[in-house]
């Protein structure tokens, strides 16, 4: 790999520092497994936490996204692993929050793994954001 400049190489080196805490990620198969676990578990937990913090039942969310309670239960199962983008978009609309899907470096994933508190997982509804803007 060739970097455009020494500064860029230094920047990438600095950005990758969270990887120091993830030695097992040097194994490609392992880090890919972690990435999948982060998606599967992360999405499921985010749905459940955001639903509960909005005082919505699984039936409420199911109604909002056009599925049954059992379908929502499946979405909140960390082992489900088959969330579709279309479904996630519907869930985001039901929660009135945005959905951000982007490719990131493993360094960024390691950094993200340090920010998994319930506060980090909560996505405020837009109306609440507006209220805070107007204060």
């Amino acid at each position, binding site marked *: 790999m060739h970097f455009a400049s020494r500064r860029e190489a230094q920047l990438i080196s600095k950005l990758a520092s969270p990887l120091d*805490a*993830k*030695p*097992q990620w040097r*194994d490609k*198969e*392992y*880090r890919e*497994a*972690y990435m*999948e*676990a*982060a998606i599967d*578990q*992360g999405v*499921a*937990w985010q749905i*459940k*936490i955001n639903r*509960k913090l909005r005082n919505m039942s699984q039936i409420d969310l199911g109604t909002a996204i056009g599925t049954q309670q059992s379908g929502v239960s499946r979405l*909140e199962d*960390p*082992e489900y692993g088959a969330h579709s983008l279309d479904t996630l978009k519907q869930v985001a609309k039901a929660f009135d929050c945005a959905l951000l899907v982007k490719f990131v470096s493993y360094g960024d994933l390691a950094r993200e*793994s*340090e*920010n*998994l*508190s*319930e506060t*980090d997982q909560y996505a405020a509804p837009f109306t609440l954001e507006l209220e805070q803007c107007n204060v």
Partner: protein
Amino acid sequence: MTLLTSKWNYHERLESGRGVITTWIKSARLSKKAQANLERTLDQLRQLPKASWSKPQPASSLGHHTYVIRFREVTGTQLRVFGHFFDAHSAFVMTFEGYEKDNVYYPNDYQKVAQQRKAECDPHFSDKTVKFGNYCALCQPQGGSTNK
């Protein structure tokens, strides 16, 4: 949490000089997927207050200071790690492994075992436990507890 770190540290019980969870992961030949599932689960839980170690999080209190961490093998086997908190080190101590089937934990006497392990570990924390992986901000990179 009471010490310097805002995240829980993870320790594992030592048996014959080896960490029991690390040994189990190797001897049971857990798949990389299962190991990654456990790592992600630990990443999640270490950032949550003790009171939040309950569903929907992948951990639960079983009473008597005993907690269980849940994750799965690729085969669907519901793997479990039992342990307790040791607040003086801001640590969760993983003391033995098991599994769950049809809402029943194995070993069946998990509560009795957990109490025994806790009684073994807590009075001699630095001798009876070791940091798990890189999950202890208070321990030296290659060693056990700084309390030694």
